[in-house]
């Protein structure tokens, strides 16, 4: 029988090792991609079109496409997501409907991304006849992003102390005035963090855009939301699996750009959260 202290030591060592197993590969992957990919990064790579069967040139149209899709996702998901969060935090009563909404949000969050792709294909591309387009892709990604935005925004709204609301109402403010002038400004940093985290996920997704928007190669940038577009995640998939004799350097360079794009959003969200948490007066 081990002594209590020894068993604690063994347990802590095992646990620390597990944490190491979790963390070390993250360092490895990020580091490996940076080391392998940084040589490919140049102004021409970032702002040029791919040419020579994509074996040369840059990733500009994919960057632009991902920006379009991220923006489109925001346009779709932010009003609906924040609106839903306001509803849940400020209006909803403790009843069956609210419970149903919560269950629906949990389920939306759990639906596999490729199933969103199927849904987007069925509803937007075919049934509503948007075709494979930025519109269809943004709607699909937007719906996928909703649960993230709703739950983080609701959390931020709920964190605003009830006393703030009471003061506003007692001064004669209507419910919406209270929300707009008091609750929303206080909750804004938290909401923005949630929005960025949601958009980060959308920007990195491949499966939902496979059938709704992504193009293998386009010689020009998209002109409208009815155009197809290239996008960074799909571009990485394409050049790592479909183009023969693709220089590894360009593959890693593209992976690096994608990772940088997504992780900088992550860092931004973390910074905003930290900054305002420190400033918070209540």
């Amino acid at each position: 029988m081990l002594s209590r202290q020894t068993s604690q030591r063994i347990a802590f060592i095992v646990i620390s090792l597990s944490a190491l197993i979790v963390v070390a590969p993250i360092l490895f992957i990020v580091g490996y991609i940076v080391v392998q990919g940084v040589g490919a990064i140049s102004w021409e790579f970032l702002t040029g079109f791919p040419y020579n069967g994509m074996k040369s040139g840059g990733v500009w149209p994919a960057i632009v496409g991902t920006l379009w899709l991220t923006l489109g996702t925001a346009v779709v998901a932010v009003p609906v997501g924040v609106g839903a969060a306001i509803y849940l935090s400020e209006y909803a009563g403790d009843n069956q409907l609210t419970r149903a909404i919560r269950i629906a949000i949990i389920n939306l969050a759990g639906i596999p991304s490729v199933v969103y792709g199927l849904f987007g294909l069925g509803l937007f591309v075919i049934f509503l006849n948007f075709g494979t387009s930025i519109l269809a892709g943004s709607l699909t990604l937007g719906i996928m992003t909703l649960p993230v935005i709703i739950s983080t925004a609701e959390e931020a709204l709920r964190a605003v102390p009830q006393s703030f609301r009471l003061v506003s109402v007692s001064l004669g403010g209507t419910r919406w005035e209270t929300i707009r002038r008091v609750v929303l400004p206080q909750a804004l940093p938290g909401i923005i963090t949630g929005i960025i985290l949601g958009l980060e996920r959308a920007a990195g997704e491949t499966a939902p855009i496979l059938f709704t928007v992504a193009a293998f190669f386009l010689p020009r940038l998209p002109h409208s939301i009815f155009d197809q577009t290239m996008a960074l995640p799909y571009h990485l998939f394409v050049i790592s699996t479909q183009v023969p004799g693709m220089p590894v350097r360009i593959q890693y360079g593209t992976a690096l750009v994608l990772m940088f794009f997504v992780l900088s959003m992550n860092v931004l969200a973390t910074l905003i959260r930290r900054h305002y948490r420190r400033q918070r007066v209540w």
Partner: protein
Amino acid sequence: MHSMRGQHKTSIIPYCLLLLIGGALLGSGCRPQTDTPVAAAATAIQNKGSDTLVNLALAWAERYQSVHPEVSVAVTGGGSGTGLTALVNGTVDIANASRQIKAEEMTAAEANGITPMEFVIARDAIAVVVHPSNPVDQLTLQQISDIFSGKITRWTEVGGEDRPIVLLSRETNSGTHVYFLEEVLRLGDSENKTLFSTDTLLLPSSEGIGVEVRQNPNAIGYDGLGYVTEDMKTLAVSAAPGEPYWPPTAETVNAGQYPIARDLYMYTAGEPTGAIKTYLEWILSAEAQQIVLDLGFVPVGGE
């Protein structure tokens, strides 16, 4: 406040309906706008289909645009079926295919009022590829069929090292897959119902096969000659035991010697006109066919 909540609750259902109706209206309202890309097709050619052809199509599109900047050719892969489906649905101008259009696709097209026109724009040898260290140099069609259907499972059975054979194939949506099934596994016999072994790895694309063949000495795969790079080994193939083994090259394909070769196609919706017609004529020109050769495919001559 609490009394307000009660009212809100009951007044929600109509809005639920409103959202649905609104969505439906939005959809129908947007329908005419989808004509935009088609209307702009005077200068933008939509080209989609076979992954085998996608790099060739890309190279053509690039070269053509450097000469004709007023025309933009958008190229997308996805497989022969993808391109032909899009042609049938009226969403592309030119479909690339590494196989001929199927009867059911033809019927579907005609039901949509489209008569697909066929153009042979290049030829392709399907190379059987292995790891460079693999000592096996040549196989008969029958041996290849037995390997991919799972009857032969070790390299020793075809004169190689004592290793398991790992089968690599393109996904089933690729024209190359279908061609390989019909002409190699089933040896061109339509009564033959041989299937790929269920152990066959189905890789999402050509380069997936390349990645695995380059690093795995157990692997055998097949792919269009245009996808073969120097760090893979191609096998010489003979049509039947006793007949000569031929390596896959432009010469052996044009001489009809290499047994696994096929035509590559482009399809248009009806007789091509305008920019599409000019583009197809250019593709069959000597300049464009030189690109075919450069990319490892076999040019179609005498145009």
